[in-house]
């Protein structure tokens, strides 16, 4: 079944009507209505409805809402919750809004997944497949692990143990396939030890939609907040232990730092500073913030960036923006850039004198 179009207010009215007049089998309008019970909370009510439509086998749903109903509903929360079921689109109409949820059939596979990971996993599922076999090549070592019928093979450059290629075998269903596609992408360029130690942390970070609530009130431990991370975790650790067994590799302390991208390496100091300033400007523009908020003072070889700010803004706001900006640069420019503002000198004159005399 492909698509169904419904009117929310009519559905609610019909439900109450049936409830008052019919004792059994009152939802004669459609089979899926047997599964639907409206809720006082508008978000839960619509969520229930979309789930009912999905379970009945529809792939696409359109739901019209009047302006009055929409005003009573937390539309942001509704969209956030619906992400787990399909791709969501909300458009204004002459009388209110039309809510479209597409890809419900595939979305069923992501149903129990934490909403923060659904969009990226769906994309990874639909994107280029990383399924396949690998065989040893000259100068590269083949490492393999299989857990619960899913295999992961990588080709590793033997000196620094850097993963050059990765392919999976045997994953089934959109969730597992999406997870393994993403995993194969994320571990490229990492050392085997880094992949085992932090590969899943990186994968979680890569898949998480930062616009949605963090998946835990406290610290996010990937396989605890979302059990689907358990498989890549076991596989990545399995790769390392396979490699250790075969080669006697026994390094446990991990000093891995990902190399700068080729594009970044090709730039000189001024070029890097310019790229950094552009990325910073974009960050401020996207947030409609004062474009003069931060200025790049320096950027060293180790990726330490010192920013200055002449503009007065709230203490907490500055701290928050700096952290967000660093994550933005990490994801959109280069992985190893770290932001600082100017150092403050010790105001304790006695202590400072001691330091100056040394």
């Amino acid at each position, binding site marked *: 079944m492909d698509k169904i179009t419904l009117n929310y207010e009519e559905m609610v009215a019909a439900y109450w009507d049936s409830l008052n007049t019919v004792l059994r089998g009152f939802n004669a309008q459609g089979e899926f209505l047997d599964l639907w019970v409206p809720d006082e909370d508008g978000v839960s009510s619509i969520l229930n409805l979309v789930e009912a439509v999905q379970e009945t086998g529809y792939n696409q749903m359109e739901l019209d809402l009047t302006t009055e109903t929409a005003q009573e509903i937390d539309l942001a929360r509704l969209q956030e919750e619906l992400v787990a079921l399909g791709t969501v689109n909300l458009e204004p109409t002459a009388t209110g809004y039309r809510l479209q949820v597409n890809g419900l059939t595939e979305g069923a596979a992501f149903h129990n997944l934490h909403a923060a990971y659904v969009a990226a996993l769906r994309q990874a599922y639909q994107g280029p497949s990383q399924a396949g076999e690998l065989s040893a090549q000259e100068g590269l070592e083949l490492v393999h692990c299989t857990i619960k019928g899913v295999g992961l093979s990588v080709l590793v450059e033997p000196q620094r143990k850097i993963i050059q290629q990765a392919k999976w075998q045997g994953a089934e269903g959109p969730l597992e396939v999406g997870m393994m596609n993403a995993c194969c992408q994320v571990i490229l360029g990492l050392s085997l030890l880094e992949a*085992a*130690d*932090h590969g899943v*942390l*990186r994968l979680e*970070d890569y898949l998480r939609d930062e616009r949605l609530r*963090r*998946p*835990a*009130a*406290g*610290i*996010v*431990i990937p396989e*605890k*907040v979302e059990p689907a991370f358990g498989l890549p975790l076991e596989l990545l*650790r399995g790769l390392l232990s396979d490699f250790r067994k075969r080669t006697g590799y026994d390094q*446990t*302390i*991990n*000093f*891995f*730092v990902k190399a700068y991208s080729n594009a970044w390496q090709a730039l000189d100091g001024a070029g890097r500073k310019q790229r950094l300033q552009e990325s910073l400007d974009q960050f401020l523009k996207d947030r409609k913030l004062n474009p003069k908020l931060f200025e790049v003072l320096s950027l060293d070889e*180790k990726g330490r960036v010192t920013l200055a700010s002449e503009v007065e803004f709230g*203490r*907490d706001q*500055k*701290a*928050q923006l*700096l*952290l967000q900006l*660093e*994550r933005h640069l*990490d994801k959109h420019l280069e992985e*190893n850039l*770290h*932001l*600082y*503002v*100017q*150092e*403050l*000198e*010790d*105001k*304790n004159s*006695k*202590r*400072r*004198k*001691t*330091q100056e005399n*040394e």
Partner: protein
Amino acid sequence: MNQKADKGQLILDGTKLDWHLDRVRAWERGEKVPPITIDMALTRACNFACGFCYAMLQENDRQRIDQKVIYEFLEDCAEIGVKGISLVSDGESTISPVFMDTVKYGASLGLSMAVGTNGYVFTKRKLEELLPHLTYLRVNISAGERDRFAEIMGVKPEWFDRVCQNIKDMADIKRQRGLEVTIGLQMVLMPEYEDQILPLALLGKELRPDYLIIKHCSDSEEGSLGVDYGGYERMYGKLEQAEALSDEGYSVQVKWSKIKDEGKRSYQRCYGPPFMIQLSGSGLVAPCGMLFNEKYKKFHIGNIVETRFKDIYHSDRYWEVMNHLASPHFNAQKMCGTLCLQHKVNETLDQYRKGQRPLKDPTGTPPQHINFI
């Protein structure tokens, strides 16, 4: 008044995190866990000027912690489940007008209280009033001879006599009144203070605190204090001789694990601060002292002078910063100074997360100072 349940082992070079596995498990489940230990100061000021003092590198926007602020802070700590508060951090808390009240009020709320101090402003009367409320009192003293004390700690030579008298009084009061408090001395060892290792160990033997701990000196990631980590190895013999001066009732211990690490970390993610955070004497709440300077603004969470601690703890900002430290965006090997207060906790949790060390419920008698992990 502080009443210790029993006399377990005194762990000075290690972590007691294993004794708080309920919190570790809750942390792993993604729950908000209150810190077990908070290390803080009541002021950033100090009446000494030690050459090794890390506080020089920790300047931030100073605010004043008055009695209202600290009382509310202590009440919040007790309410959310903090267990121990050590007044150490980046200032000399004993020179704050609210020092005595802080210790007494904290203890009355059921919090374990501890102090790290240069030991100068005490009098016998003050010590008698203070010691019953403390789990431990540790005097920072990095020399065992008068003139070297003056040089190293940036004060007049006669201050050495007063500090020694105070240490002796502490030990006497403890013994005479049968108090549970542990009296300790701490030497922050720079390679150039090698000549003071044995004189200090001998001085301790005479003054009779419970222990002397000798530890490495921390430095910033840029090496601002100029600590020569390679210089410690030549002192191993002297350090062993100092340890051999231990007797019944006086233990000399070297923080071998940190000294031997030569300032290197085995971990990149930092998982410790949710269990053990630090507050600056300015009221600043940050994951740790190494991040106090204004330079590390991105990690600054709030200030107890402006916001109640319980609100800071529950805020999204608090957990955003904690999550950032535990994420792939953070690398302690590159971004932190050497061997922070949380180092052992970090190391333990990192090994656990990497599957290198299981979580095991401990058995036997709990160690002393269990709430100071």
